[in-house]
């Protein structure tokens, strides 16, 4: 992709993002979301974010790895527990990263 095309793509990504954020703030009186869509939107964050998380955790470097030597898996399990108990994104990230480094260090 040429740099000009890349810039054009980025601008369009920005317009899509802005449209999603602006749409209902601007036109809430004229647009009504059907109940089914509203219910469905509720599941968007968990579905999309999980779809990003799972391959990183179970499929690091492009191969399925369910062993204890998979530092990403161990890190994710600990991070999930920290997230569930603390409800704090920053602690989750910090502890997860420390566990990942710990496992990588132990495995040399």
């Amino acid at each position, binding site marked *: 992709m040429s740099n000009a095309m890349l810039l054009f793509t980025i601008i369009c990504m920005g317009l899509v993002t802005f449209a999603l954020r602006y749409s209902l703030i601007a036109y*809430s009186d004229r647009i009504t979301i059907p109940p089914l869509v509203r219910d469905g939107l509720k599941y968007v964050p968990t579905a999309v974010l999980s*779809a990003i998380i799972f391959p990183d955790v179970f499929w690091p470097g492009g191969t399925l790895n369910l062993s204890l030597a998979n530092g990403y898996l161990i890190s*994710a399990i600990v991070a999930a527990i920290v997230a569930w108990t603390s409800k704090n994104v920053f602690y989750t990230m910090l502890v997860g990263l420390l566990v990942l480094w710990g496992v990588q260090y132990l495995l040399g």
Partner: protein
Amino acid sequence: MEENETSPRQQFWLGSKHTLPIVTGVIPFGLIFGVLAIEEGVPALLAWSTSSLVFAGSAQFLALPLFGEGAPFIILVLTTFIINLRHLLYSASLASYAEGLSVRWKVLLSYLLTDEAYAPTIVHYQNEAVPQTYKHWYWLGSGLTLWTTWQLTTGLGVLVGGQLLPDGLGLEFTLSLTFIGIVMPQLINRPAIASAVSAGLVAVVAYSLPYRLNLMLAAVVGIAVGLWLEKRQTDLMEGANE
């Protein structure tokens, strides 16, 4: 009465102050974004331009490998759409509070409407102890604090990130760790859990699809599973009540 005493300036700084704890998490994230952009071979200035032109962290992160492998225009726009679809919810939830603001305000506040700004802002709007008059200044204060942090840290990241954060530390994994922090507290009922797990499994199984199309497929399946289970639960409850 100090808590209730409000002026635009006070609301602005209150919004900024309430956002500071979130900012500490955004700083490393911005730096890491810069490092990954360079690793993916995206020109520094173009990578940095996404911070102002798109201003949506997770979409920016996901776009980096797609830029790197030269994914087509339509894939990037569609992926951005799916990843940021949740903002439609924020827009709906804040719409009634933004009623009566000028178009200029609405455009500015919408542009600044990220996950991190939405969280404190909606809590503040719902707090009826504070008069509603100047609460859009709180939103602005929160949004601008995050915007400034994001521009500075991603800029620093593309400039000197490689020297600050060396390769091979698994830093790209911080994106997933952050998302784990966001998703876990939301798994409060069976439809939500099933939606997350099914989306995750589909994303793994369909991993070999080009251009991370597995994400889109996974999102659709996850949403459908959540909706279906929710409907089944309400049907069961209605059946039990009869």
